[in-house]
């Protein structure tokens, strides 16, 4: 992945977007944005419909921005930055409505997460044709870690960046190995198996919903070329994992069934333990040797990912919390951060 590629993701400055929106000259745009967000609450939730509405809106706003006095002498990149800012702003506001909104989404997420959980117990790189030279523990874990960040973001572009970063790590591994050894560069023959292996190692939160969200709500003009290729790889990996059977791993049928039977492994398939298990079964020592304090930092993801949102109180104001919210929030804090009593005190002082 070349940084000079025309399809690379620009680094838009969200604050520049907000600053321009505060200018009196952009009052018409602000009105359009506000009424667009309000218009969503007037319709019933429908992922396809919502996606079409957002894409049409972004396209219309792109045209508006193009001829708007505030952007009149701007470069194409600056106008792109404005639409990127707009996507982030609107989708952050509409996140709760649009993310994992279809009835089947949570079920699909749970299904694939459970499956990965079982696979983690026995799958070896060789089952997927990951060549020996690519079995570089540090790189693979680094790639997995990039994927696991996906729920820390709400904007489609930022979620997509987690995917791109993961693919970039694998890409670099492949390129470095072909430079330093006799291993012939084998392109997708090496890339896809490695990516699937990384996904299984990572068990990223809400894989299905995240991929669907990016497909539906990422600004379509930017979902092209290299970015589209790597997203397609994630989607095909998801499809491969969902349909995995003995033959797709070249395994003996009986052995596969035995491995995939929950009782055969240490994993108890109660809803929450699966996700926790999936994170815990990584060799933590290696991650720590990379200078990461993984366990403490990632632990809030473990249970909360099953509720559909990693940080359920991230965007809540103290005065908007109901008494149930406070109860459950206190529950989270004491559960995941037992040693941080001063946070609890601070929290209580806020309400």
């Amino acid at each position, binding site marked *: 992945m070349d940084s000079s*590629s025309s399809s690379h993701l620009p680094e838009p400055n969200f604050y520049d977007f907000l600053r321009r929106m505060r200018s009196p000259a952009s009052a018409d745009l602000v009105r359009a944005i506000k009424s667009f967000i309000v218009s969503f609450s007037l319709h019933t939730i429908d992922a*396809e419909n919502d996606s079409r509405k957002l894409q049409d809106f972004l396209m219309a706003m792109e045209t508006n921005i193009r001829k708007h006095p505030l952007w009149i002498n701007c470069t194409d990149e600056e106008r792109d930055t404005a639409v990127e800012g707009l996507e982030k702003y609107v989708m952050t506001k509409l996140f709760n409505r649009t993310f994992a909104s*279809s009835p089947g989404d949570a*079920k699909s997420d749970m299904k694939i997460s459970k499956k990965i959980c079982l696979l983690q117990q026995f799958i070896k790189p060789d089952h997927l*044709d990951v060549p020996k030279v690519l079995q570089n523990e540090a790189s693979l874990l680094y790639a997995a870690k990039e994927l696991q960040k996906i729920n820390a973001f709400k904007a489609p572009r930022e979620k997509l960046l987690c995917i791109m970063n993961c693919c970039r790590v694998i890409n670099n591994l492949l390129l470095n190995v072909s430079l330093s050894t006799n291993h*012939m560069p084998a*392109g997708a023959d090496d*890339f896809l198996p490695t990516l699937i292996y990384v996904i299984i190692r990572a068990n990223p939160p809400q894989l299905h919903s995240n991929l669907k969200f990016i497909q539906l709500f990422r600004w379509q003009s930017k979902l092209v070329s290299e970015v589209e290729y790597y997203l397609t790889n994630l*989607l095909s990996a998801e499809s491969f994992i969902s349909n995995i059977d003995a033959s797709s791993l070249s395994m003996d049928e009986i052995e596969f069934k035995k491995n995939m039977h929950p009782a055969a492994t240490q994993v108890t398939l109660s809803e929450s333990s699966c996700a926790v298990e999936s994170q815990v079964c990584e060799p933590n020592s290696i991650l720590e040797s990379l200078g990461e304090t993984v366990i403490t930092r990632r632990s809030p993801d473990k249970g909360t990912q099953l509720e559909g949102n990693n940080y359920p109180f991230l965007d809540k104001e103290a005065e908007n919390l109901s008494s149930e919210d406070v109860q459950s929030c206190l529950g989270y804090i004491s559960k995941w951060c037992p040693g941080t009593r001063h946070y609890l005190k601070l929290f209580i002082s806020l309400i």
Partner: protein
Amino acid sequence: MATSGSKIKNAKLVLLGDVGTGKSSVVLRFVKGQFVEFQESTIGAAFFSQTLAVNDETVKFEIWDTAGQERYHSLAPMYYRGAAAAVIVYDITNPASFTRAKKWVQELQAQGNSNTVMALAGNKADMLEARKVSTEEAQTYAQENGLFFMETSAKTAINVNDIFYEIAKRLLVQAQPPPNPAGMILTDRSDQRSATSTSCCS
């Protein structure tokens, strides 16, 4: 960025072929070997882009590599959907890879877009003494199925540029007759969107 007066036409090209046929080596030869001033190319591990000038027009190939292992075969449609061109690669020293190539041709003909330009590439053409698939056999097959055929060698670069040049020429010819006011859209994204979205909603 392009030379003045010429427009760049984007073309998605999908690469299909059994493991070990050297399909990415063929592409690497093409991508690294070209030098067009002021044009950017992308060399990733599995995605490549390269521009090619044909007369006064320019085609920008976006090359999508696919995993050749049998276990990943069923995923291929996700990659070749909406492709303007497909290069199906086999190894002239390996008859099984030729059988596999024919399978892809059939699949593309059955499911793909009939406008997709298809090329059959018999790679490792430098290894003549180990040849197991004759030129005539492949040539006949290609003719019968409306593909164009070349034997290539990523090692010696024989026919590598030629095959991409020929694809570019065919894409430009194909794109010419119906004047399209919206410009040249070689990758059809609309069908892809609806297809992916239906699969999303269970």
